[in-house]
């Protein structure tokens, strides 16, 4: 493998924070200028990341070291297949979301928009930082920065409800990261004398069985952004944030940072063989299977659309962890590619929810009867998103589910296979009725549907883009497959 020292990883990370001063200086007096800059930064970031794709495909490893902190401790970046996959998705969706947030925030005449865009940009910076982190300490650094920069976004509305949710968010995320990940990381350093992600892991043959098992669970639950039960309830609470935040951060960036961190722990810190020998993969698989089922069940009972989506996210995230913890090549590819597929599917759904809210002010599913006739594009996109999340062709979601199922069979875990199938069924059960009601149900008498029309163009276009890509991914997923295979060294 060729190692190239390159400035591109750090450039990709910093490009979004570097515009924050510009955003602040534009302020609310020149909103067009401000949003144009956000857009420019997004495109720039995406291009930088894309520019690394060919290299990585040919086995190049881009690295960049900032500082050396001590023996085995650096703050540095490394672009491999896994990180690049994640970064590609996140940075592309940022562009789309930027467009969407212009429509959403202006449509609702929200306050403190400059603050919103600034923290959004810094969240993205942290997300890419996590994706490119070369070692656990860098990952932890950006993980924490992400928690902090999303906090103001969650509390954006500044009403008591938002504040309580903000508190919940912080307590869950920071308590677990400081209380579990930090000590686990230090113990890990104590055992392995390094924190670099290495293909075979760094903990092989370093500690006793008990300590490694405890450490594993500290990591698994410590990265609470992955919303494994019982540490999931911050995610529904965080839905008080404006929809672009929910869409990009709480369906893509933040939660997937949690999952991605766990993937790094699996592949870079523990290593497959160690996990196999300690039977930790199975344990993690069953924990995530539990989350999948319970998450889906709770989702069915939610009437508020965003909360339903949140619980769906909780359960879908555990698909990824399940796939990874199968420890078979197909399962792992399925898990990681689900990051991509779910991202496009779920963001479409959130965009849809936001568009409905902008256009009608409706949050509750029970009051959306008949809206589909007035907002056909929105509901069509919503339908495609649902298909992708359920895992039905012709959407990308099918592809990842397929690999997950194959992985289960390879690992001889039929019980997990059954759970997967049940969950898919449940997914269909809680998503399709929304679309069905939207198109075919007769509207309630007390809701006057006739005055509604489609959301602004800025909201519609992103939705169309993501929905289209969801479909396209069914046909063209090869690039991600290849990147992930390279990342996993398969």
């Amino acid at each position: 493998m060729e190692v190239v020292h390159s400035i591109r990883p750090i450039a990709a990370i910093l490009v979004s924070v570097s515009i924050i001063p510009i955003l602040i200086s534009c302020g609310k007096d020149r909103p067009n200028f401000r949003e144009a800059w956000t857009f420019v930064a997004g495109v720039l970031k995406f291009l930088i990341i894309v520019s690394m794709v060919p290299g990585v495909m040919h086995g190049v490893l881009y690295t960049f070291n900032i500082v050396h902190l001590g023996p085995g401790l650096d703050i540095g970046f490394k672009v491999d297949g896994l990180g690049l996959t994640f970064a590609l998705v996140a940075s592309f969706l940022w562009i789309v979301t930027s467009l969407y947030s212009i429509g959403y925030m202006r449509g609702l005449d929200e306050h403190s928009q400059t603050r919103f865009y600034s923290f959004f940009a810094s969240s993205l910076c942290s997300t890419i930082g996590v994706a490119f982190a070369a070692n656990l300490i860098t990952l932890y650094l950006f993980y924490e920065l992400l928690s902090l920069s999303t906090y103001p976004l969650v509390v954006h509305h500044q009403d008591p409800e938002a504040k309580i949710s903000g508190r919940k968010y912080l307590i869950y995320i920071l308590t677990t990261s400081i209380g579990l990940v930090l000590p686990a990381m230090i113990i890990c350093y104590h055992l392995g004398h390094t924190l670099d992600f290495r293909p075979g892991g760094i903990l092989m043959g370093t500690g006793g069985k008990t300590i490694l098992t405890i450490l594993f669970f500290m990591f698994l639950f410590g990265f609470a952004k992955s919303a494994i039960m019982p540490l999931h309830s911050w995610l529904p609470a965080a839905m008080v944030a404006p929809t672009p935040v929910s869409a990009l951060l709480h369906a893509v960036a933040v939660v997937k940072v949690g999952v991605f961190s766990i993937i790094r722990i699996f592949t870079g810190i523990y290593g497959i063989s160690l996990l196999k020998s300690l039977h930790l993969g199975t344990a993690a698989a069953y924990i995530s299977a539990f989350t999948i089922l319970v998450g889906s069940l709770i989702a069915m009972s939610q009437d508020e659309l965003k909360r339903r989506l949140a619980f769906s996210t909780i359960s879908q995230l555990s698909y990824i962890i399940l796939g990874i913890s199968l420890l078979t090549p197909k399962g792992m590819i399925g898990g990681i590619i689900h990051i991509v597929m779910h991202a496009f599917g779920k963001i479409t759904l959130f965009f849809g929810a936001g568009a409905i809210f902008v256009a009608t002010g409706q949050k509750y599913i029970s009051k959306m009867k008949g809206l589909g006739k007035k907002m056909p594009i929105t509901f069509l996109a919503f339908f495609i998103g649902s298909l992708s999340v359920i895992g039905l062709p012709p959407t990308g979601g099918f592809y990842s589910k397929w690999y997950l199922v194959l992985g289960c069979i390879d690992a001889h875990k039929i019980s997990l296979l059954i759970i997967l199938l049940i969950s898919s069924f449940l997914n269909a059960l809680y998503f399709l009725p929304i679309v069905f009601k939207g198109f075919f149900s007769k509207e309630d008498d007390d809701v006057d549907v006739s005055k509604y029309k489609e959301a602004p163009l800025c909201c519609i276009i992103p939705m169309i883009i993501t929905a289209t890509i969801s479909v396209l991914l069914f046909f063209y997923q090869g690039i991600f497959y290849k990147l992930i295979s390279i990342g996993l060294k398969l």
Partner: protein
Amino acid sequence: MIDNHVFPILIVITPLVCAFFVMGLYWVDKRLCLPLTILAISISFISSIITLYSVLTSGTIQYKLGGWPPPIGIEYRIDLLNGVILVIISFISLFNLFTSFNQVSHDFPEKKGTFYSLYLLFTTGLLGVVITGDLFNLYVLLEITSLSAYAQIALGDKKRAPFASLNYIFIGVIGASFYLLGVGYIYMMTGSLNMGDVAHLIHNLHHSQAIFVAFIFCIVGVWIKMALFPLHIWLPNAYTYAPTASGRIIAPLMTKVMVYVMIRLMYSVFGIDYLFNTLHISQSIIYLSSAAVLFGGIMALSQDNLKKMFTYIIISEIGYMVGGAWLGNKTGLTGAILHIINDVFMTFALFLSAGNFAWRIKDLSIHNLEDIFQKMPWTSTGFVVVALSIIGIPPTCGFFSKWYLILGAIEAKQYLFIIALILSSLLNIILFFRVFEKSLFSSKPHVMESKETRSYNLIEEAPANMTIGLLVIGAILILIGLYSGKIVSNLILPFIPKGL
């Protein structure tokens, strides 16, 4: 070439001599007081940098005062540890002058000169305590420091400061006297007052009860002065009601210098062998410091006044350093020393931000801080950075010292201390986000972005020197964090005594 060996003495002598000049000038021309003070501390700062540089290049420096060889006369002995701390003290003292001269003219319009004189004496005392290699000289300088601190604190809040200061005197005198008594016992048994000499003589007395008692009294005396729980009762009130300009320098430096004294006594006088092989008290001291860490955090949580909250944070941080120093391994001591460096800056920045807030809001209760982010955006930015550092979020420096402390505790298998450290971080999160929630997001009804509201959000920052000062310190916090690897490997690890 100038003889390098002039600089160690210049560090202490310049502020001292200038203190007399400032006092004299006060009667002649009051305007000259501040420039002279700045000049004095600048010279001291530059000298300490040169001294540190020569320590780095040529090892420990010895300076014989009066030309007498060590056990006979007093000596200055500068190794890496105190070299670094000297630089930090003089830097903070100098920096504080820039950030607070307008505060001083505001608080003491008529007594400005005498105030600066006292300020210089305080700095001299701290520098002298750190630089000296003589047990009794340390006591004398400690008393100069304390005396000027008592006086500065008593000048604060008219109603409460004198009482707080008097309590500080009583407890401070007990602390200093305990230390003096301990030194008396050491002198009784060894006949020497020079640290190096005593360390040498004490080797044969490891099982002496009198040396044990001497040790206990020295350490307890130092603990009282550094406000280790449960000997902390004087600290919160004294630091809360001190005048802003003095509180800013007393709070960060006084306690940290005492931690330095403790480390110096432990490792340069009594020695590792005595501490960890002869005595078996390190376990209980770590329990004590864990208790201090938690107590500080919990008490901070129950405070309504911002400044008082900060004072309890200091108490909690003291626990970190004492615990780290007593872990008895390389990593723990590294963490403790790194934390001294970091904590000086963190506490300084905390009190700077408190001072900036106080410039606009007289009563620093938390509920008065509503909307402060809008009114004072720059100060608030600095405040957020400090808060993150105290919580221990990378890449701020607080994270890295905590890292070493926890790593040291794992190596020493002190799980209680680890739990205390982590719980304290969590407490700090609650502590600061309680403030942020109040100050960042007003609970006023959904203010729409429109023209009418613009006049509403008028920015009312503190004076530029204060604000910029805070931001500079905030940047330093991050820089120290990023370069902590270099700091540890170049400045701290070479000091760590062999055998740990």
